[in-house]
């Protein structure tokens, strides 16, 4: 059986690896952006010079041959689902011995084409010097514009926006950061954490404009961006405009086909599309029936990895439902690390009580949410402090009593040795609200964690 995979990102490559582990099927991965799988999450580090492209590639070149995973650098123009054929166009200069067929037949197809940057029809959004950040080509484009750049304006206050701000900042390029919300990422972060990141952005000398939207991008007369105008009527001169107002599934090339799509390619819990033998995974897939606590489209790294593994099982004849488990995620805002486990909404609903402690320095915090109807634990939000995934997850899964969690909270701490431990402060915050006197019983340490996890 010949399995074709479109897209060599984390989803497509994980699928290929697991299919190889589970079977002897012929595997071919077609992708347009790069010859080899690299970590998209590390794009910023390439620009900042922490790594080269090679360092971001998780597998050595020999790996593909050894595992008989065929790689083809090409764009898929469209798919002939009826006759099971892909139509290819070259994505790179072809060398003499590099033969690219115009058509590629398959028996089963996995679509893992990822996302594309959002554009909301702003006037001037297609000018030169205006670009999102998603691919290596985008990165190269940013780099080309970085020379003698007087200012970059970044539009959209999400995770990619703040990464872009850090990138330019690392090269001493002045940045203006337009954020539509009243506070950074306030549709996801609770108020205190969001305020912490506002401060952090400003401390890094980024010109942060909250509650500000892009109205238009100004043309210099020859097709190049020279300034932006905000909804407040202000004009900001700049040589580059970064569009980072989110991403959407990259499925444009499939729109005219019989494939059922919504925001993304619609898939059931087995990652099957409406067309037999065609699967979709990763950023480009949309779950028709997401599990509770999860969304239909989740454009993040680990879901791509999990879907890749799940689809491999399904293709290799072992039906498995996709189940990403309890929500978790992480990010880094300049120097502040962020981790979340479970349910931590931006606006705390009635049934939830949120205990929050913040370090006097204003760059570390712990938040724990629980259900005030039955005192069960709901979620953890950490800034500048690391918590152990498995421990938090086990508490969440078992709907552990809040006070039990508090007493044992030390065992969730994952900060390096010698670091201060702040759990007692959170207990104090809880005791104050609840009028109780709960004492911390466990501090950081591996042995008790192992015992707890094996329990």
């Amino acid at each position, binding site marked *: 059986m010949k399995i074709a995979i479109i897209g060599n990102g984390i989803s497509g490559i994980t699928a290929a690896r697991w299919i190889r582990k589970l079977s002897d099927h012929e595997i071919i991965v077609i992708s347009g952006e790069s010859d080899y799988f690299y970590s998209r*999450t*590390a794009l910023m*580090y390439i620009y900042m010079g922490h790594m080269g492209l090679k360092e*971001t590639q*998780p597998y050595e070149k020999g790996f593909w041959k050894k595992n008989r995973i065929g790689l083809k650098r090409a764009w898929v123009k469209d798919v002939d689902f009826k006759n099971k054929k892909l139509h290819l166009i070259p994505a790179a200069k072809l060398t003499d011995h590099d033969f690219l067929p115009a058509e590629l037949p398959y028996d089963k197809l996995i679509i893992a084409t990822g996302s594309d940057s959002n554009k909301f029809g702003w006037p001037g959004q297609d000018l030169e010097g205006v670009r999102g950040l998603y691919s290596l080509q985008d990165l190269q484009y940013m780099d080309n514009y970085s020379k003698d750049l007087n200012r970059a304006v970044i539009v959209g206050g999400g995770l990619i926006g703040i990464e872009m701000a850090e990138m330019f900042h690392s090269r001493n390029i002045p940045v203006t950061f337009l954020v539509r919300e009243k506070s950074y990422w306030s549709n996801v972060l609770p108020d205190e954490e969001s305020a912490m990141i506002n401060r952090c952005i400003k401390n890094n000398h980024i010109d942060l404009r909250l509650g500000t939207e892009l109205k238009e991008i100004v043309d210099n007369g020859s097709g190049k961006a020279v300034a932006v105008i905000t909804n407040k009527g202000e004009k900001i001169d700049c040589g580059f405009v970064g569009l980072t107002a989110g991403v959407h599934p990259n499925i444009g090339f499939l729109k005219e086909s019989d494939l059922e799509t919504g925001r993304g390619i619609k898939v059931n819990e087995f990652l099957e599309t409406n067309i037999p033998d065609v699967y979709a995974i990763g950023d480009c897939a949309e779950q028709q029936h997401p599990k509770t606590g999860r969304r239909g489209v989740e454009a993040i790294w680990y879901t791509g990895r999990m879907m890749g593994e799940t689809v491999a*099982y399904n293709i290799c004849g072992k039906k498995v439902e996709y189940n990403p488990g309890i929500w978790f995620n992480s990010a880094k805002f300049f120097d502040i690390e962020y981790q979340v486990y479970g349910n931590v909404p931006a606006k705390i609903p009635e049934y939830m009580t949120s205990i929050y402690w913040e370090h006097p320095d204003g760059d570390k915090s712990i938040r724990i949410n629980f259900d005030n109807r039955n005192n069960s634990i709901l979620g953890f939000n950490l800034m500048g402090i690391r918590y152990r995934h498995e421990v938090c997850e086990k508490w969440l899964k078992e709907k552990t009593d809040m006070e039990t969690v508090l007493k044992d909270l030390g065992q969730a701490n*994952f900060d390096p040795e010698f670091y201060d431990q702040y759990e007692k402060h959170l207990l104090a915050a809880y005791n104050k609200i609840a009028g109780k006197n709960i004492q911390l019983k466990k501090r950081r340490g591996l042995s008790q964690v192992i015992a707890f996890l094996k329990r």
Partner: protein
Amino acid sequence: MNLLDSSLSLAYQGNHKMTGLQKISLAIVGLGTLGLLIAWASNGNISPLPTFIFSLAAMTIGSLLYTYSTYSGKIPGIKNNRVFQYGISSRGAAAWILGIVVTGFYVCLYWFPHLLEGLIRLHDPLSHGLRGKAADQWFVYGTFYTVAVLLMGIKFIFKYRHNRYQIIRTISVMFFQLVFAYLIPAFLALLNKPDEYFSYFWPLDSYALRPDWIAGKSSLGTFGYVVIAIGILMPFVVTPILTYFFGKRWYCSWVCGCGGLAETAGDPFRQLSDKSLTAWKIERWMIHSVLVAVVLLTALLWFNHISQNTILGGFTEGFKSAYGFGIAMAFSGVIGVGFYPIMGSRVWCRFGCPMAAILGLQQKYFSRFRITTNGGQCISCGNCSTYCEMGIDVRHYAQRGQDIVRASCVGCGVCSAVCPRGVLRLENGASDIGSRTDALRTIHISEDEVSILS
């Protein structure tokens, strides 16, 4: 710009310029270096004390000023900006020049010390003050080494000032270098005792435990017996105990002088270590061969000693000098340090050191130490592998949620420090020594349902 070509070629354009203070501080370091060069060229015909003070002061002030101007006023955090762009840290011309200069220095040191006469005479006043006798090339070497560890250690501490593990660890290597590898030997020399390095022992110190070593020490009376006792206790009792509890890091990145230099002066080059599977294979062959060689050497010397040189006399002598030349000098010194800017800071520790080999075997099979990974949080970015000076592909383990137990890991903690997602933690735990790497902490599929295997 070539959108079709995958060979991404970032030109690193930006508004980066050195600040005035950085330039001044480098100029001051340059002046200090010039002082050394003049002293060297003068071959001893220059007043040593003022030149020495001038050079040392200029280097110290310049280096501290550079550290200050680079880090002060900056928000603490991981800032490996432009590491893959600067020639000095990415095998550019500057790196090759530095490599050649340092290599040349080592070659002179071991085999042509008379070429260093000017530098040796420069150190006479300090040597007289500390040890009551004239300097030799080893004193010069020790001084350079210690100054490098101290000054670059201070820089390292500033760079990682947000990370208490790094601060404490660096203070420790600075302390052991200054006190155990420099001041105590000098002090012993002042007391007319042979200079002992209590932080080096067999098998790293291949002279220790030889018959003539034992005989030599025994002739010193009580002091000698203390040295012999330490020389036996350290490798055979203290080391296994400490390694059981903390892994090899207690020595390799907290005490050892080779490690100390690698962690401080070598830090700008740590990303150059080769991460390939081939390198790992070569590493295992080489390091264990050196271990076998030194064990064999010591055993042969004893065998010969007991058999009164009747059987293998000539062979053993040849083997001894081959080890001394090939391993102790050429490998640990010339290649080990001279090649920092090309092959990274731990070439010797990774491919050659027999001490590391023993500690590594124990770390792998009988130690509480491991690096745990944090469930499914790894985003495979590669920072950990890139900045692992031992060339361990940390990401390989982290992305599959497997704890890391590798013989070569020196526990420097830098992988954990540079990880942007809080995935790695150096830990010691007794309850699961035999199964440290069994758990796969990311969510995987077992049988026919998705479940967490842990």
